């Protein structure tokens, strides 16, 4: 393998190098700013590398006049037995890396108030991001599983990072046990699929499974179902969602931002690739089960969020519902569904990062306890107008109101579902969105109510807290731009379609 062939693997290589450098940097000298910067630079380089992979395809679709100047539209592509780097994986790698960077920025603001060791969180973050990258590229059960574990293991550490806090430790233990159980399910499922087909490569599984018919493929089906169970755990789909609110509540806010976006995105990316390449869409039974999961997630997630007074739990339940919506688009199948999933994940990631970012910036100055009660946000608009504007846009976007990113995502879900006439699912999505409004509005109204004991003054704390605030403002602008001019983003997602559709 020569040097050119390695180029598409650059994001993974750079991230790996970053991890080593960060470890050395921490060993060399403990310094919060310096250690965080090392990781941020590395992740930025990796992000650039993965965005570069997408550029030719994007230019051809969106700005054809520049496509010639940027060189022939050659899709950089690498295939190793375990990993494949194509436009699809480049898109999800970029998403994971951008999320990791945002999390690093938020963590920096958050960890300033932490009294223990602050530097390792960036190391764990980079490790976890590497797992996400591997998953986005995996075409083989081995790399799928390695990526999944690499993604999850550092998360245990991150969730329990505030070791002196009881809730944080409790959350870490819960996540550890349930996540390990889910991994065991996935592993067992893989073994069953392997036993039947004799291959771990997605495409080969698809080819060989075509030969079986009738009751012959029962083992394959059971294997698929077990994998699905494990993935449903990771994506916190009902009825495997029980860990979500507790973990969200206990974990430090920036970690939740990461957990709810990057880790789920990566899992979803590999799920979609598996379904397309292994041709799992032809098993109607599997899709029926997923339909049940989606409807349950939408209904339970929204209903349980209704009366939450804790914003982290509220967002946790809301993320359960949102993955129900994405699953609804997923079930629709076909190129439009792949596109819908991509667009929805993009809008969801941007929105959720902004929402948890606000929680992070609200929490950080208070040290060990997060500002997660809705009460903490009462009248925030009159104290910190920018922060509340960001949270307002984020909540509206989660509710799927036009002019925000969330609407485009919801539109795509509807388009994909209506195209395939999935009326039950579409009804569930509409119903869920309607009840979802209640708690988003309830949270939003809190921001604007005048708390009787709050004097109207600008908070003494700098609301922006430097980079974190700037990034949140950028996210808010991104949410609005996505909502009003989605074309370039649609072009990116279209450019990153899956081959073999």
């Amino acid at each position: 393998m020569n040097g050119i062939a390695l180029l598409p693997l650059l994001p993974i290589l750079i991230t790996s190098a970053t991890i080593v450098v960060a470890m050395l940097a921490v060993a060399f000298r403990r310094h919060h700013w310096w250690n965080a910067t090392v990781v941020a630079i590395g992740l930025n380089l990796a992000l650039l590398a993965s965005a570069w992979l997408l550029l030719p395809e994007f230019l051809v679709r969106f700005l054809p006049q520049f496509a010639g100047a940027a060189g022939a539209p050659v899709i950089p592509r690498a295939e190793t037995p375990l990993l494949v780097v194509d436009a699809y994986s480049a898109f999800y790698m970029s998403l994971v890396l951008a999320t990791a960077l945002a999390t690093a920025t938020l963590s920096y603001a958050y960890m300033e108030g932490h009294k223990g060791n602050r530097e390792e969180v960036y190391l764990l973050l980079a490790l976890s991001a590497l797992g996400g990258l591997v998953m986005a590229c995996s075409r083989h059960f081995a790399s799928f599983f390695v990526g999944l574990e690499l993604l999850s293991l550092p998360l245990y550490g991150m969730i329990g990072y505030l070791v002196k806090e009881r809730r944080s430790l409790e959350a870490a233990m819960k996540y550890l046990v349930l996540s390990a159980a889910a991994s065991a399910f996935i592993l067992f499922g893989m073994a069953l699929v392997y036993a039947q087909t004799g291959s771990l490569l997605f495409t080969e599984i698809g080819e060989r499974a075509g030969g079986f018919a009738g009751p012959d493929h029962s083992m394959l089906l059971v294997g698929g179902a077990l994998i699905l169970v494990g993935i449903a755990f990771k994506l916190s789909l009902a009825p495997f969602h029980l860990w979500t609110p507790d973990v969200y509540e206990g974990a430090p806010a920036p970690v939740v931002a990461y957990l709810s976006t990057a880790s789920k995105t990566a899992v979803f990316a590999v799920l979609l690739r598996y379904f397309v390449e292994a041709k799992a869409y032809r098993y109607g039974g599997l899709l029926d089960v997923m339909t049940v999961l989606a409807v349950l997630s939408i209904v339970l997630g929204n209903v349980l969020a209704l009366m939450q007074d804790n914003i982290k739990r509220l967002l946790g339940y809301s993320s359960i519902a949102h993955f129900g919506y994405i699953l609804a688009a997923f079930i629709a199948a076909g190129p439009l569904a792949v596109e819908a999933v991509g667009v929805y994940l993009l809008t969801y990631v941007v929105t959720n990062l902004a929402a948890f970012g606000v929680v992070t910036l609200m929490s950080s100055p208070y040290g060990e306890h997060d500002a997660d009660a809705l009460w903490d946000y009462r009248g925030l608009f009159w104290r910190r107008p920018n922060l509340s504007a960001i949270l307002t846009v984020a909540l509206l976007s989660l509710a799927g109101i036009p002019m925000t990113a969330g609407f485009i995502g919801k539109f795509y879900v509807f388009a994909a579902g209506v195209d395939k006439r999935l009326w039950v699912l579409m009804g569930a999505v509409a119903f869920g969105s309607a009840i979802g409004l209640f708690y988003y509005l309830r949270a939003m109204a809190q921001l604007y109510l005048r708390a009787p004991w709050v004097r109207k003054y600008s908070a003494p704390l700098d609301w922006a807290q430097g980079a974190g605030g700037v990034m949140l403002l950028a996210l808010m602008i991104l949410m609005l731009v996505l909502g009003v001019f989605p074309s370039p983003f649609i072009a990116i997602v279209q450019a990153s379609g899956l081959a073999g559709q």
Partner: protein
Amino acid sequence: MILVLLFMLPFVGGFLCWQTERFGRGLPRWVALGTMVVVLGMTLYLWATGDYSVTLLGPEHHWVHEYQLAWIPRFGISFHLALDGLSLILVGLTGLLGIMAVACSWREVQRHVGFFHLNLLWNLGGVIGVFMAMDLFLFFFFWEMMLVPMYFLIALWGHNAPGGKGRVYAATKFFIFTQASGLLMLLAIIGLVFVHYQATRVITFDYPVLLHTPMGPQAEWWLMLGFFVAFAVKLPVVPLHSWLPDAHSQAPTAGSVDLAGVLLKTAAYGLLRFSLPLFPHASAQFAPVAMWLGVLGIVYGAVLAFAQNDIKRLVAYTSISHMGFVLVGIYAGTDQAMQGAVINMLAHGISAGGLFILCGEVYERLHTRDLREMGGLWSRFPFLPPIVLFFAAASLGLPGLGNFVGEFLVLLGTFRAHPLIALCSASGLVLAAAYSLIMMQRAFYGPPKGDEPLEDMNYRELATMMSLMAILLLLGIYPQPVLDVARAPVQAVQELYQSATGLLSQAGAP
């Protein structure tokens, strides 16, 4: 280009209001007033210079003004604004009531003046967008977009009326009702687009292209229903109306004016513009149900209006009753009835807007909206009671005022096609007379509750009222200019719908 300007104005103006607050509290009001005056002025200019006698739904699609720009080419969505007579009238109404809404909150709103006007103007901008959008995606975009500012208007500047459940509750209820039904409409829109795609292999959200989409009766029926539910909630049609009295009783005066005068009209407009022309056969089939729902609304709204003690709730229920006439008129299928519905929309916007402003003025002076605590007010104000009497008379359909023309045309048009429905609807006129007079009786006659004279209307209030009264009078005496402008689009819809009704009756005949 002028359409883009017209639509952008309130947004830019609203933003300016928000930013100019830092230079002085009064400034946002002037900016908002100026913006809405310019909007109204531009509409009048368009009216004066355009020729509105052309039909849109004819063989070649023709708009009086049009602007189109590709927006999301992936789905064939374009930023398509267009104007014909129907849109023009309603945009004009929006401009007029916008001015009134700014004027009536001059003294009422003292907190966060800039942010208030931002919300008010953005809401009005969304409504203007709804009236001009000719792309279904764009239409839905505006349809939902106008909700958020309205939510803030009610939730932040509303009243916590005694006995009510609070303004945040009312605002949330309003939002959820309209948004939930809106999602059904979004499903129907996407469904329509895919039906069109399957028939022609062209994916587009453009309204003129989607007209005459060939589709099976069952698909047409379901898609029509999706649209109808969204419009029925907003209109409101009776089983789906319960958000309206709550929203009105908690909203600030400007919010009520906006809600009753303009927002409800978007639903009637949607029925006329989208529901009927896109799904004529299903609508014709559905017409009896819709009309009986309208009759139910007329009677129910009027009867409940009797029972109210809160004067704003009373006016809110009369709105339900009046919108029932509009619904009957739209679905009756005759030319006169549809024309009448349009006049009724306009007249009700002005008369209900006027009544809500008057309620606000009474509240500012008495600090109560409870009819039981009023009484004998006639002797304590020189000007206000006769003006209220004028608007109450308009609302009960006194000949010579706009509402009479509208309701009369609706009844006349409906009687030709459905005499029984017309008969039942006419009972609404009797009930309207009763509730209007009872409202007058309870608030202004009888023994006064106090002796000291109350502060009367100032010039600002008198000027707004006088202009609204003049317009109502004009509409009642000489409605022809309005009828002329609205004729072409309404006739086109009516012909389309009439042919579908004809087919239906042929099929029904043995």
